[in-house]
């Protein structure tokens, strides 16, 4: 059976499509957006998360680590030398306080289904269902295809949340099994897009145009102040959305959730300093999109 690497199954999701949903987060992403709020999802392989705040300094992980990558200091509890760490996760098994955990788990379609069907009654009453998200779901498209097919077989409403950065054939193969496509747009300008996400947006925009002909599309806009929140930029997006027959646009104002997660991953490089647009600006942008005849929701 098809397996995939999943880093979270989030029940009671109410911002990833209509109604009450379960969102299946696939691990691994070809983009590396500066503002990423789930940096733990970027690597394709399972990674070690170390939450210092939960560490009691008991030293069980030090004893468990075959590489000698963990040391105990009186001041800061345990520290992990990520260069020595080979992700064997023996420290995770030893940790009593859930300070060390694994992010990412190889699962079969059936295992995922077992969890998602449990909230079937909530889906039914709320018009909700299952959303496959990431990371980038298209990067594990074979698994996602099998999962979406199975959802459809079970009569569950499906949504796919994607950056659109993948060969068209991959996205196309999934669309017959997707009821709503949640399509992320970061920036329309190719250079800005490349600078902040690491990839070109040409394929993204092409895929969007093609997908909109085959599926219901909701746009999702991560909003970072001074980067993509200008009236002009959002107007362009609104016009594009209208021309493609988009029903709904979700604004996702930047939040700092990713910073702590970077720390948990041991990534101590530059911290991306950013802000969400102010409330006034958001209202203004909302108005622009609504004037083009689309519904707008704000926040997650």
């Amino acid at each position, binding site marked *: 059976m098809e397996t995939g690497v999943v880093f979270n199954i*989030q*029940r*009671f*999701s*109410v*911002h990833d499509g209509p*109604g*009450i949903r379960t*969102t299946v987060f696939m691990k691994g992403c070809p983009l590396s957006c500066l503002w990423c709020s789930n940096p733990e999802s970027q690597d394709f392989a399972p990674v070690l998360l170390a939450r210092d705040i939960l560490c*009691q300094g*008991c030293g*069980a992980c030090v004893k468990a680590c075959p590489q000698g990558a963990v040391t105990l200091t009186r001041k800061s509890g345990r520290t992990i030398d990520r260069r020595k760490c080979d992700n064997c996760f023996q420290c995770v098994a030893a940790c*009593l*306080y*859930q300070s060390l955990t694994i992010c990412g788990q190889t699962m079969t379609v059936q295992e995922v289904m077992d969890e998602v069907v*449990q*909230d079937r*009654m*909530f889906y*039914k*009453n*709320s*018009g*909700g269902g299952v959303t496959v998200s990431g990371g980038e779901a298209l990067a594990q498209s074979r698994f996602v295809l099998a999962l979406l097919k199975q959802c459809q077989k079970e009569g569950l409403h499906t949504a796919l949340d994607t950056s659109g950065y993948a060969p068209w054939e991959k996205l196309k193969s999934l669309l017959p099994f997707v009821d709503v496509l949640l399509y992320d747009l970061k920036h329309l300008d190719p250079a800005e897009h490349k600078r902040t996400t690491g990839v070109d947006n040409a394929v993204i925009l092409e895929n969007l145009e093609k997908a909109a002909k085959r599926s219901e599309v909701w746009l999702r806009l991560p909003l970072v102040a001074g980067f993509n929140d200008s009236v002009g930029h959002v107007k362009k997006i609104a016009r594009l959305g209208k021309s493609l027959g988009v029903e709904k646009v979700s604004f996702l104002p930047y939040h700092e959730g990713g910073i702590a997660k970077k720390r948990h991953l041991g990534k101590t490089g530059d911290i991306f300093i950013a802000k969400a647009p102010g409330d006034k600006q958001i209202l203004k942008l909302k108005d622009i999109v609504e004037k083009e005849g689309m519904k707008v*929701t704000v926040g*997650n």
Partner: protein
Amino acid sequence: MQTAKELRGKIVSKAVRNVKRGYADDDSKRGMYRKGIRLDLQRSRLMTESFKETDGQAMVLRRAKALANLLDKMGIFIRDHERIVGYQTSDKNGIYHPIDQNWKSVLRLVNSKAGKSLLDKAGRKELDELCAYWKGKSMSDRHQEALPDDLKKYWTYEGTFLWSQLSELGIPDYENLFKTGLKGRIDMARKRIEEIDRTIPVDYVDQKEFLEAVIISLEAVIRFARRYAKLAEAMAKKETKRDRKAELREVARICSIVPELPPQTFAEAVQFFYFIHLIRYVEYSTLGVGVRIDQLFGPFYEKDLKAGRITKEEALDILQLLWIKLNELGLVYSPTVSSVYGGVASLQAVTIGGTDEKGRDVTNDLTYLALEAAKQLQLIEPSIVLRLHAKTPDKVYDSAVDVIKTGVGYPSLFNDEALIPLYKRWGVPEKDAKNYAVTGCVYIEIPGKNVMRRSVGYFVLPKCLWWALHQGVDPKTGEQRGARTKDPATFKSWKDLLKAYEEQVRFFTNKMEQLERINLELYEKYCPRPFYSAVVEGCIEKGKDARKWVYPSMLHHFTQVIGGTNVADAITAVRKVVFDDKLLTLPELIKIMDKNWAGREDIRQACLNAPKFGNDDNYADLIARDVHSRGEAAMETVKDRYGFSNRGDGSAVSATYGLAIDTPATPEGRLDGEPFADSTLAPLPGKDRKGPTAVLNSCAKISTVDTYNHLLNQKFLPKFLDDDLKPVFISYLKTWKDMGVPHIQFNVVDKNKLVAAQTYPQKYADMIVRVAGFSAYFVDLSRGLQDHIIARTEQSLK
């Protein structure tokens, strides 16, 4: 007409503060009541006066005459905002204590730090004199005297159960009273006397004395209303403001009609109800309301509306004035009992929605008006109970969510589809079951029937498990207090532990029930309730006081069970660490646990990390299912005085915090004294990690019909009930109903706000939280109880 804000300003809050956890002090310096609240001795004084005069007469007549003495002589007054009138104390700041029930606790209270401001020196002296009369005569004295020696030690609270005398509820038969007035009842009693005069049955004297007592009581009630009519008339004469003059004249008119004669208008019906409700409290200290307010008053409102006698705004005003009255009853609790009633005034709950006896939806204009009154006033009481069923209109959900969103903690939602089958199993006839109402937290009653509901007390289930792990022996004293169950060293699986637990539950239920049987017999003999008997169905007809017979089902008798989730998670932890993972043996675990986990945090963490109820995980949930249903079955093997089974009830009030102090460490990783899960269906705080849908899925695995009427608290952030998400929240509620989970209620508050209120109590003086089956001002709760509420999992948005 007054605005909600103006009316709120008139309120005297009499909510009790919890000043004890078991026997230990808990923020007792705050005082048990807010500043300015006084113990009112008028009831004690007038009752004692009458009792001294009636010495030697039949008790039922003595109590009727004492009530009459009270109603004829009580100080009465009407406040300047009032149009619904009646107080049980001589001024607005008073609370009264039922000295005939128990005088020792009130004496202890006024002489303690927590209660010394309740009485001045002269009052203290008078109280001493009054108490001297009741020495040996109060119900509590009689009970203690009557107990056989081996039961005495179980009467004293030790941590396993808090036997309590107070929780007697009941819903008068307003529907029929509204048809006949009290006059009709008096006529009926007179006719019954004639009938027994002709037949002379074996209990001729009993019947005659009872019926005479009924007549004395009801006539006194009519006179009491007339006193208010006279007072209102006199005030109207002096009144210079024209509007107020007219209002007082209307009060005078109404009080000269009701409750003697049937009410014709909405305002008359409300005043009629309030007199009866109030006098229930004057006759005997009681709790709750329970009235199905929309069903009862709706027709009067609609009739007035059609006749052009009332507007919607006027009706709302009357309803709000009633709300204020219900908010102000108050009661005196003993300091130990305050540990289970943290923040309670007098558990006033009114019921709306649901079906009639034939299963038809009862929603009417008043259903919405009641929700509107609640939304505008935002009081801790009365709490609204909303019954939901398959045909509840969507608009009711919508209006209910608007009230829930304010953060007041109600309406508390009851699921007819889960509960009615349960009542049928209890032996309640279907048409009565469909007419159920909720009086206090989740206390279920049938309006008008002689249910005479009594809570036997608070039953600490984790302590039963603890006894099961110690073969019923207190390791500190060596005393055999619980049942001698099998040695845990011999347990082959978690199922053996469950069996030993069931035995302990049965053992202690038996002890409680023995205490209760003696108590009920004494109440029949020494504390008849002629007034209450006259206003419920069947007593006058039978010529029997309400205490001499009972509604024929196991509905009337229950024990408030707390900590069921802790027991379930404890047994799950034993299954995981002892029997599955074999980290250590059960005796080793018990030894570590008994030292409060000292030096073995590793084992405690292993227990904490074992699967927990509330995550939609069968490993834990199916054990929870068995713990609830088999515990209930064990309780039901014990029969009450009338031959009906004892049973559990989810009305935990604040006992999950207050009484947990006397249960040492338990295997789910709980520390000595740490609070339990906050309600029968609640997961342990912070241990439900999969969100609110998983919590409901877990709860749905526990069969309501095999157990009892549960309570489930959920905490949501306010923004989840806003605009876009409101339909999603409503769909969540509908799924709750479809799943057959019997109850749910919400704290809709930001955790940060609660934390801020701990620092700046003045600024948050009006902030209300849901504690258990009741709402309370957050600032009235002890710090520990506040922390207990903050610790509950906040269901966040993803």
